[in-house]
């Protein structure tokens, strides 16, 4: 684990050494706040919870996380540092894990900075803070799933635009798979697929967390989702190091 943590520490510092961190965090906070108070009708609902906020986070991540991951391997290729990193004595999966952990920690920091919302609901009413915490855990897991997927895509191509568009599209498939539009369509035609779509959907799993339910099977879902795409990332990297 140690080499992975060393890589993660370097990566995280690199985010903050460039404007990437500031731009990402500011845009995330502005959009999250604006959507919660306008479309989410935070005040008008008259309820002390963060449901309006949580309902927008996966959709924000859908665009912001691929922006974070698109440069993950492409940048190493552009600078040639991939050759340096992968000839240091660390197993390749540790480099993959390290990069993922750094990006995940970064998303965690961005999420943590939404704390004024949490303070606001606690001043205005007495929300169930357990439910709010579980909602945040859910957000972090959604971010992790998108990150793992986006990182694997970025290992696939050295073109950052392609990496971004492809990652958004793939994340969207997993986000929308459980939505009524998709499942109702499948229900009438291929009920088997509807069930599969529902169980693969990131949004469906996330719903439980926002209601305060941390189910073991949902945790297993996210863990295997992340694990699978990190594995894909390592395999892809092994085959396409030099291009």
């Amino acid at each position, binding site marked *: 684990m140690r*080499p992975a943590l060393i890589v993660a520490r*370097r990566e995280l510092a*690199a985010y903050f*050494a460039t404007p990437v961190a500031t731009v990402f965090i500011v845009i995330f906070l502005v959009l999250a706040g604006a959507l919660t108070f306008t479309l989410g009708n935070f005040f008008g609902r008259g309820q002390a919870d963060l449901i309006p906020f949580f309902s927008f986070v996966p959709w924000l991540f859908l665009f912001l996380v691929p922006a974070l991951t698109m440069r993950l391997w492409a940048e190493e290729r552009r600078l*040639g540092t991939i050759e*340096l990193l992968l*000839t240091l004595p660390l197993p390749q999966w540790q480099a993959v894990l390290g990069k993922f952990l750094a990006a995940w920690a970064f998303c965690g920091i961005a999420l943590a900075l939404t704390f004024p919302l949490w303070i606001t609901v606690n001043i205005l009413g007495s929300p169930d803070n357990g439910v709010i915490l579980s909602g945040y855990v859910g957000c972090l897991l959604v971010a992790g799933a998108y990150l793992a997927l986006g990182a694997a895509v970025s290992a696939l191509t050295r073109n950052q635009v392609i990496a971004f568009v492809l990652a958004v599209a793939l994340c969207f498939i997993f986000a929308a798979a459980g939505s009524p539009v998709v499942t109702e369509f499948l229900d009438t035609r291929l009920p088997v697929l509807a069930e599969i779509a529902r169980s693969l959907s990131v949004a469906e799993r996330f719903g439980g967390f926002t209601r305060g339910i941390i189910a073991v099977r949902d945790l297993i879902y996210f863990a295997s989702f992340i694990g699978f795409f990190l594995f894909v990332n390592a395999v892809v990297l*092994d085959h396409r190091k030099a291009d």
Partner: protein
Amino acid sequence: MAALIEIERLTKRFAGFTAVDDVSFSVERGEVLGFLGPNGAGKSTTMRMLAGFMPPTFGTARICGADVVDQPVAAKRHLGFLPEGAPTYPEMTVTGFLAFTGRIRGFRGSELADRTAHAMALTQLEGVRLQPIETLSKGFKRRVGLAQALLHDPPVLVLDEPTDGLDPNQKHEVRDLIRRMAPEKAIVISTHILEEVGAVCTRAIIIARGKVVVDAPPSVLEEQGSTLDEVFRRLTLGQEAA
């Protein structure tokens, strides 16, 4: 004792062409091997395979007895590698960058600080230790890459164009450094500066179109023509005409 670097029948094919074709050689302790060839001859590809970055299509490479494909971490521990173009992370400071590679190599605390300081002293980087690498000149960047390769005092050094972009004084210093380290190490340097071969190498391999065309001490090469330059041109151009 077995050679520190052993390369057997190393071959790399890309779609449509063979970049490295059946290359075999070994390098023992105390040898400085100059790896010569025109651009695109397969020098960097061979070095990348030796460093464990690119898997060979065929053949094997071993560093201190460890196969670079089967035991990659063990092989890389014994290796100091300067990749082509000396890539570094531009936003990091010189100390930060060297400490990062040192930590990955398992050094901590005062040993890490000592090794970082020593590597910077060897490559004359103390003056810029706290500067971000992106603000440095090309010669300094190259030396940061070199310092990274020397940090852990490895028995095997593979340096892809170590003096490219350096001014004449810096070139002289790097060659001095290589000569001083030579007795304890097996060193491979690639270059297309022929005078360098005469200056530091105990042996030269000329590679053209992925194949080894000459493997001899520089003095023997010089005997074949009036200058190394002429020998190089004859060997590598002759290959292309054939």
